[in-house]
């Protein structure tokens, strides 16, 4: 009878195979579950609110996003039940947004001081006519914080959705704090004059990234 010498060959091979299997399965699982550093695809005239704005610009942008909802509701209320003097002025003045509504970024508080004391003005207010086409716009410039874009534009416009309207808002920034008031607030004109459209990175985008929910 031949007794083979004691050897760890078989065990060593099995251990090596097990390690290879573990690494392969682990690698495949990591690949399948990892989330890439997601950055939205943008056109040359667009920037991301999350990736491209600095903290000062983000503070102003975030305030403008919420202000746009409130502005549409103020407008709707004034159209429906105008107080004396509001019939011809459904879009509130910047003074009213500051004093009456305390609405950032228009209210002159600590945030306004700390984010560059931007000079805001209402530059367009579409008429209360039947078709309700056109833009209403609020423009701010003169931001004084180093590194901030410095000039901002909020454009409120009705978006046609089939036979109905939806309230829409676009925000734009200009790298020149002394950018002049835009003569036109149509997209092509703003792009031609150096304005960049801010594309929101909001909870809806994050949900789509994390869970594929649209």
């Amino acid at each position, binding site marked *: 009878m031949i007794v083979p010498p004691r050897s760890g060959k078989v065990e060593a091979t099995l251990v090596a195979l097990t390690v290879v299997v573990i690494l392969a399965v682990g690698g495949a699982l990591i690949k399948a579950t990892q989330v890439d550093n997601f950055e939205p695809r943008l056109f040359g005239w667009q920037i991301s*609110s999350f990736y491209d704005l600095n*903290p000062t610009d983000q503070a102003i942008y975030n305030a403008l996003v919420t202000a746009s*909802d409130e502005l549409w*509701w103020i407008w709707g209320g004034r159209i429906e039940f105008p107080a004396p003097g509001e019939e011809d002025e459904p879009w509130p003045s910047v003074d009213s947004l500051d004093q009456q509504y305390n609405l950032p970024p228009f209210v002159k508080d600590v945030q306004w001081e700390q984010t560059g004391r931007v000079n805001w003005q209402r530059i367009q207010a579409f008429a209360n006519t039947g078709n309700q086409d056109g833009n209403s716009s609020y423009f701010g410039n003169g931001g004084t914080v180093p590194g901030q874009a410095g000039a901002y534009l909020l454009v409120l416009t009705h978006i046609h959705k089939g036979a109905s309207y939806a309230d829409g808002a676009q925000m734009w920034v200009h790298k020149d704090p002394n950018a002049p008031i835009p003569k036109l607030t149509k997209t092509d004109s703003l792009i031609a004059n150096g304005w960049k459209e801010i594309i*929101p*990175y909001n*909870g809806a985008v*994050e949900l789509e990234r994390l869970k594929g929910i649209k």
Partner: protein
Amino acid sequence: MRSFLHLVSALLVFALSAHAASAADAHKLKIGITLHPYYSFVANIVGDKADVVGLIDSHANPHNYTPQPDDMKRVMTMDVLVVNGIGHDEWAFDIVKAAGREKSLKLIYANAEVALIPIAADEGQAKVVNPHTFVSTTAAIQQIFTIAKELGEIDKPNAKFYRDNARAYAQRIRTMKTQFSAQLADVDVASFRCATMHAGYGYLMQEFGLQVAAVIEPRHGVEPTARQLAETIDRIKAANVQVLFAEKYFASKLADTIKDATGVQMYSFSHMSDGDYSPELYEREMRLNLETLVQAMHDVSKKAK
């Protein structure tokens, strides 16, 4: 005869109005929420037109929460569930799935329209979304508006009521912030430097035009490694940080260690995720946070003079 007719008419009117009231009650929406501030938001929007219930027990810690059998029972009775959805209540999705209500329960994503910001002080690393949008004023108002709009789509007869309540609530929050902001008129806000134990306060700081120089915990409740702590202490010293905001209701020896190593002054913020659910909780806790922030800035200012 005439008085008999009056009596019959009165009884008829009473019976009809009682029926209408009970029919309205029968159709009252039952709205679930995942986090304490959402209870306050929804309760202030819907008033008595809907019932608001917590998905989990109000005294449970929503950080790293493990779903319980009672959560499944609660979710079975809900018509709508309001969620943070961007990382602060992932357990809610497990509960909804476990209860088999993925398709039958309407979810309102409170943050759908909130412009998100990265967790502060992680320069040089990949930007990570800060999910603590409810510890804020403007981002909180955006969520209130989104919830009101979504509820108005579900319950159209009450849409205007919800929107008007949302606007009145938002105005109260803005007025509160403006009042505290006015108390900082004689403070040198530009030279104020702070760090926070937890990443939950980035939105609040943003709304005062402040930036957080360092965040101590890499994740909530997770203590940094010795190396991370040493680097953070170096960052606090280099940035000339004067104040460290820890968390009310969560004592931490780590905060004392940092205080001893750097000489920063300590204050505590509320994370708004503790205590009974109530309509007043958000405003009460936010008022405390604003008082704390203003006090800290005044103290630093006095010390500098």
